[in-house]
């Protein structure tokens, strides 16, 4: 089997060749970018937050008619309501631990700030950006994060302050990622750091293995693992509680928790829809756009491949029909069935190969466009190569049906007039 006759034949139907090559090129460009998008979205979604994500609930509620000021009397009143709720929740059957919390990973309600190694550094770019979590001495147990160095908070560490009060806690636990960034030598424990440009240091008493910040937007991508936990009950006329239930008790606790809180104090509002959410709900909500995009891209890829395959089948069938007699002549002159089959397969390989070469260029161009406009990353070569394999295989699969029909053309056709 040699190429010159194939190329000579292809020159007879330039339009069809160009169309198939173009279609393959476009398909390759779109498919490998789409697969890359799917992969990066899925990779994003599958990152663990560092918490034990099962058996975790978040309750959001607001007191009605509670003092909203930040004078000492109002704060003490708010704090006593908060502690009353905590006591009731901790006594609830099926609950294993509870903490008040300002936000949790993926909630997209973010309390961001800065960490510096010098006092009063009025600079966000100081040493590191971070996101603050405030809870009490049960915060690590409730979130299910692993302490890898130092000690946990104890009841004596826990303080309370008004929501708007900007004083910083005396002690903090930070993530290992943040500790390593601030103290590359690994000696973070016991060191003082200055939060939000404070002039008074907060001492690092412990490090947790991993805890994602509370947002999954692109603006936090530079500090996704830089979390700081402070032992503080924040007082305001609203509160969030994270609840870890005993295994298998999630649904029971979830159903009962609103009523329990209403019994403790009826003067409050807990939203029917979003007041009590499992962490699985919060995660699904946070990543809905990513998952949706991945599904959309997947569907588009499949349909696109199907359309392209159909196009190849259609055009090749036409060529087979057109060359019916020539095939018969070749068969009469001694070509075997397999030779005819190979002819069409090789022809397709040639066209698809040219299309794929153009497609690689288009794929890289499209990737550059996406980088420029959508903060996408550069596509690794492996995606282009796998796209290449996919379209070549697709071409061969699509050409097989008409090529086999061609190979079944009997030699006797040559003797008939067209």
């Amino acid at each position, binding site marked *: 089997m040699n190429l010159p006759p194939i190329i000579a034949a292809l020159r007879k139907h330039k339009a*069809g060749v160009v169309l198939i090559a173009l279609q393959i090129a*476009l398909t390759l460009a779109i498919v490998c970018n789409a697969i890359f998008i799917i992969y990066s979205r899925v990779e994003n979604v599958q990152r663990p937050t560092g918490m034990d994500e099962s058996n975790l609930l978040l309750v959001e509620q607001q007191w009605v008619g509670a003092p909203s000021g930040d004078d000492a009397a109002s704060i003490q009143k708010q704090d006593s309501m908060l502690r009353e709720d905590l006591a009731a929740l901790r006594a609830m059957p099926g609950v294993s631990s509870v903490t008040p919390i300002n936000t949790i990973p993926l909630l997209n309600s973010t309390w961001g700030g800065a960490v510096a190694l010098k006092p009063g550094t009025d600079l966000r770019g100081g040493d590191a950006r971070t996101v603050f979590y405030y809870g009490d001495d049960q915060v690590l147990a409730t979130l299910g994060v692993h302490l890898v160095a130092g000690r946990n908070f104890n009841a004596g560490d826990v303080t309370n302050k008004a929501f708007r009060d900007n004083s910083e806690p005396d002690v903090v636990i930070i993530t290992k990622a943040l500790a390593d960034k601030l103290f590359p030598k690994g000696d973070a424990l016991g060191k003082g750091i200055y939060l939000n440009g404070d002039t008074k240091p907060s001492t690092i008493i412990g490090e947790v293995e991993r805890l994602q910040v509370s947002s999954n937007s692109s603006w936090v991508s530079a500090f996704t693992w830089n979390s700081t936990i402070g032992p503080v009950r924040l007082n305001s006329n609203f509160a969030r509680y994270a609840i870890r239930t005993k295994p298998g008790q999630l649904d029971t606790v979830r159903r009962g928790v609103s009523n329990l809180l209403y019994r403790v104090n009826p003067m409050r509002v807990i939203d029917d829809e979003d007041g009590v959410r499992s962490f699985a709900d919060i995660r699904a909500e946070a990543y809905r756009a990513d998952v949706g995009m991945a599904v959309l891209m997947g569907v588009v890829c499949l349909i696109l491949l199907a359309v392209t395959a159909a196009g190849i089948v259609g055009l090749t069938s036409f060529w087979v029909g*057109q060359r019916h007699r020539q095939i018969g002549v070749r068969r009469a002159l001694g070509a075997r069935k397999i030779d005819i089959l190979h002819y069409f397969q090789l022809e397709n390989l040639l066209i698809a190969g040219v299309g794929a070469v153009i497609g690689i260029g288009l794929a890289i161009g499209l990737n550059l466009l996406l980088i420029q406009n959508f903060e996408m990353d550069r596509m690794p070569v492996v995606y282009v190569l796998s796209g290449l394999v996919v379209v070549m295989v697709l071409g061969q699969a699509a050409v097989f049906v008409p090529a086999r029909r061609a190979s079944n053309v009997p030699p006797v056709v040559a003797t008939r007039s067209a």
Partner: protein
Amino acid sequence: MESMLAYYLRLGVRSLRRNPVLTVLMVLAIGVGVAASMTTYAVFRAVSANPLPDKSAQLFAPLIDVWGPQERGNGDDIPDAFTYTDAMALMRDRKAARQTAIYPLNHTLIPADVSREPFYVTGYAAYADFFPMFETPFVYGGGWNREQDDARAAVVVISSQLNQQLFGGANSVGRSVRLDDHDYRIVGVMADWNPRPRFYDVNNSGGFNDPPDFILPFTQAVDTHTDTAGNNNCYGSAGRDPGWDGWLRSNCVWVSLWVELPDSAAVQAYRDYLQGYGAEQNRAGRFHWPPNAQLFDLTQWLQHEKVVPPETRMSLLLSLGFLLVCLVNTVGLLLAKFMRRAGEIGVRRALGASRREIWTQYLAEAAMVGVAGGVVGLLLTGVGMLSIGLVFDPEIARMTHMSVGLIGLTLLCALVATVVAAFYPTWRAAHVQPAWQLKSQ
């Protein structure tokens, strides 16, 4: 001529029925391509709409560099909100025809009827100019006036929905509502009003939420120490005094500002004024950097805040590429289909049919494929509309729906796309050499 067209259409139907698989392939390809484009376009159109088309050119969002270049590091934007101090300074100077500072609020509404449970309401703190600036329609009453702003009056404008919920839709002007621990006198009930994207709040929210339940005076909200329900970005807290007053005096940004500037002279004057304000703060030693002021009109603001989600633009781009592949595919299939009948064309030409007639005949056949593709596309667009919620925000999904315009556009798009795709195959068909074809028969 008309009877000829009918004849061509009949011929077309016959030809399409001769290769049903090829025909179905073409119709499906067109349908799928058009449906994907239309669905994503519907979403794109919904999120990129101009919320106030007749007024948008006169509404501006100013920004000033309150944190200085050092904070921004490399190439970030200046903060997209104001500190309380600067917002109040600009409000006091009244250099625009109209101006309002705005921030979002959450309250618990406590119904007068004690048997009803309290519920959450969301709204905004704004100035009297808010209503005429944004052309808020009212069913009852109206906004408050500037004197009431200055008097820090406990008045409120409520939405028609809240009015329905509390007063059964009756005229409630003069009655009062209790939000947390304060009573407010209702001065107006808005008609259904929810410009989307909600341009005046896109720096706090996605911009496609349900309409606000209430709007009350900014001065009153500050007096009652009501926190912002939106973003509050602070640049360090060193030296900040505790409590509410400390927060008001801090460099935290949380106030949005909108001004109405009727003509280009006013725009230039306001730009100069902002620049001058920055210079003055620099001289006063508050800003240690050269003044840097920006003024966005409404549409520029929506772009600046990247209101159209990247998912939307990306999927629009993707589906256009998809449509392109479907079209290339259709060109190929039509070419195959038409050229298979080269012999028939040769006979017709030899019997006196002009090229023009061949053109008409084959374009008519392609147009039928287009119409069929359009109908399939319409059905698939319907399916696409139902599944928008899987990919996009539910708030955005709720905004997109089948409209007469979209149905028309889908059919038109399918028809035009197919006819354009048919151009080359038809040209080839019309240029079949009759002598050649007859000879090879």
